[in-house]
């Protein structure tokens, strides 16, 4: 069988191919099933899910109350649940408190609402500094939190997954739920960005 590559494979490429081929031979994995999962997390599950949760909370006070009290159940009402979202805690940004999330030990992240985490979230610099210098990290992301505003850092445990409910920006009073969801970014639900009103 001729290789489709016109260059040597990288070390991880070799290892992945070797593992996958061995496991297929032993009848342990089905590559087609894996393809589907990859596609799901590459194209279907993502921050647009969390944005819907946020927009619902902004427009429905009872939903927001449920969301803050029992995150998993409320998020589940919108159809988002599953792996890495079994135990959700939603923390609300207010005029008094700004929340930021991290997993210092690995990469814990709420997949059903935000999809897979970005590289910077999983890498050493963010994991190290989010807990010791959150205001510095936020400033690097362009978020200047006033000195008199409390910053809360939530470090995920192996089981709990957090999501930030960002503040609804002024000037959005006339937008409907779907239009509001379009404003909500992934970074605002991690706590390293604020939601911007449309220009």
């Amino acid at each position, binding site marked *: 069988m001729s290789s489709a590559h016109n260059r040597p*494979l990288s070390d991880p490429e070799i290892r992945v191919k*070797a593992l996958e081929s061995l496991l297929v031979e032993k009848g342990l994995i089905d590559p087609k099933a*894996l*393809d589907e999962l990859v596609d799901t997390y*590459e194209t279907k599950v993502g921050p647009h899910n969390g944005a819907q949760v946020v927009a619902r909370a902004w427009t429905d006070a009872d939903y927001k109350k449920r969301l803050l009290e029992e995150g998993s159940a409320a998020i589940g009402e919108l159809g988002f649940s599953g792996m890495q979202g079994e135990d959700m805690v939603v923390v609300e940004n207010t005029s008094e408190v700004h929340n930021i999330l991290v997993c210092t*030990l690995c990469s814990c992240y709420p997949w059903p609402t935000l999809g897979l985490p*970005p*590289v910077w979230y999983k890498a050493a610099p963010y994991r*190290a500094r989010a807990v010791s210098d959150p205001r510095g990290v936020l400033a690097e992301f362009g978020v200047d939190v006033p000195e008199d505003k409390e910053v809360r850092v939530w470090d995920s445990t192996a089981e709990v997954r957090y999501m930030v409910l960002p503040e609804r920006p002024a000037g959005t009073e006339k937008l409907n739920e779907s239009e509001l969801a379009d404003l909500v970014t992934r970074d605002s639900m991690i706590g390293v960005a604020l939601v911007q009103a449309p220009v």
Partner: protein
Amino acid sequence: MNGIHDLGGKHGVGKLEVEEDEPVFHHEWEKRAFGLFFGVAPHGFFNLDEFRHSIERMGAAQYLNTTYYEHWLHAYETLLIEKGAISAEEYAARCAEVAAEAS
């Protein structure tokens, strides 16, 4: 454990680097590395805590100098061999074959 993975508050681990609009996966092999977890997990060779722990056992220099999905590869290699799903010899042999086929 007091390993390198316990990064909270550590100095000297580099500057925050953010890639704008980064793709979910940066290489085809990363997609395969991601998918493999769900193929292997149901067989019960290891659970998620063991998976994390195998990465935590990597060693500080290697941990900091390899990428996230390379950590996952390390976990599969470590655990699948430790648990007897594959042997170190057949894995090494297959890696050599794959490398030879491509060159």
